[in-house]
């Protein structure tokens, strides 16, 4: 490439303006919380993700499962962030949010969708008991795996489900996060 061509390829202008968009089919934001950075996403006014997963993985999954028009737009998440912050400060016991389990498999949906009804604030239940309540008494292990894949963490309280021995067993956000949430609920 000669001098003129390289000057052309470097031709630029200052103060380039990023584009602005209408509300995306899937709007998401990264939200810092005491239990880590969470990716929050809504589609059609419903929460489709509240996750500890990384941005690239989660947005690719959302693009595939919901719509490729996925954009980082904090405004549509204002209500979700506010409720989450209230909950994490111990000032809220229930979420008033609609959830869409678009990222879940049919079995995960079966396990996760009624989780708020099968658990209660400040109490824990076990994988086995939950399996019995959704009429899959032999599927405690599969129930555990489904909870581990919860795309809408905290809002759907998979942290309230523990092993029958009392061991916390596992959590997408790490065991410290699970401990934090259970401590928070037992105090508030």
């Amino acid at each position, binding site marked *: 490439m000669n001098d003129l061509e390289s000057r052309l390829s470097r031709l630029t202008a200052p103060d380039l*303006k990023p584009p602005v968009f209408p509300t995306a089919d899937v709007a998401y934001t990264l939200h810092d919380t005491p239990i880590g950075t969470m990716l929050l996403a809504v589609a059609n006014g419903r929460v489709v993700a509240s996750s500890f997963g990384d941005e690239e993985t989660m947005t690719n999954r959302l693009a595939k499962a919901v719509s490729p028009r996925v954009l980082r737009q904090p405004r549509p998440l204002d209500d979700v962030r506010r409720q989450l912050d209230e909950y994490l400060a111990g000032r809220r016991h229930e979420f008033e949010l609609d959830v869409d389990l678009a990222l879940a498999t049919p079995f995960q949906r079966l396990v996760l969708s009624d989780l708020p009804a099968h658990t209660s604030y400040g109490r824990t239940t076990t994988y086995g008991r939950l399996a019995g309540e959704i009429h899959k008494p032999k599927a405690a292990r599969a129930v555990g795996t489904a909870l581990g894949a919860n795309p809408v963490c905290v809002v759907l309280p998979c942290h309230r489900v523990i092993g029958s021995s009392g061991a916390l067993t596992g959590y997408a956000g790490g065991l410290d996060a699970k401990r934090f949430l259970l401590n928070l609920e037992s105090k508030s």
Partner: protein
Amino acid sequence: MAPEKVSLPPFQALVDAHWRDVARLARALAGPVDGDDVAQRAWEKAFAAYPGLASAKNLRSWLLTITARCATDVHRARRPQSPLDEAPPIAVDGPDAANWPDPDLWQAVNELPERQRFAITLKYVGDLDHHGVAAALDTTPAASRRLVSDALATLRTKLGVHL
């Protein structure tokens, strides 16, 4: 039967990777006055069309092509009567144009006939090959090559560059 669904990346990934290139190209194609507007329109069109895309390949050149078409539309809307190659130079009296890097080159590029300016800008600012330039300008790679070499010759004369 529904066509097989193409797996498109999240639109945000396109914005993050390419918005600067689109903005740069739009300024070079449409000048400082209309450039930002052209870039914004191009993104709106891309956003609207994105879910219906048949392929996830060459998304960058797809975006740059839309940008070139939006720049053409703006140009035509401004001067509905004149045939393309006789269109007068674009408006360059933007608020900061004099402070842009390499002002002599900007000036010389802006004075090129529209097709030449588009071809040379897509080739070098957009970093497209002649197939990409040709697709964006609805012409052939051979014609793109000719437009670019004519533009380079004019620029060399104007800028006194002997290469």
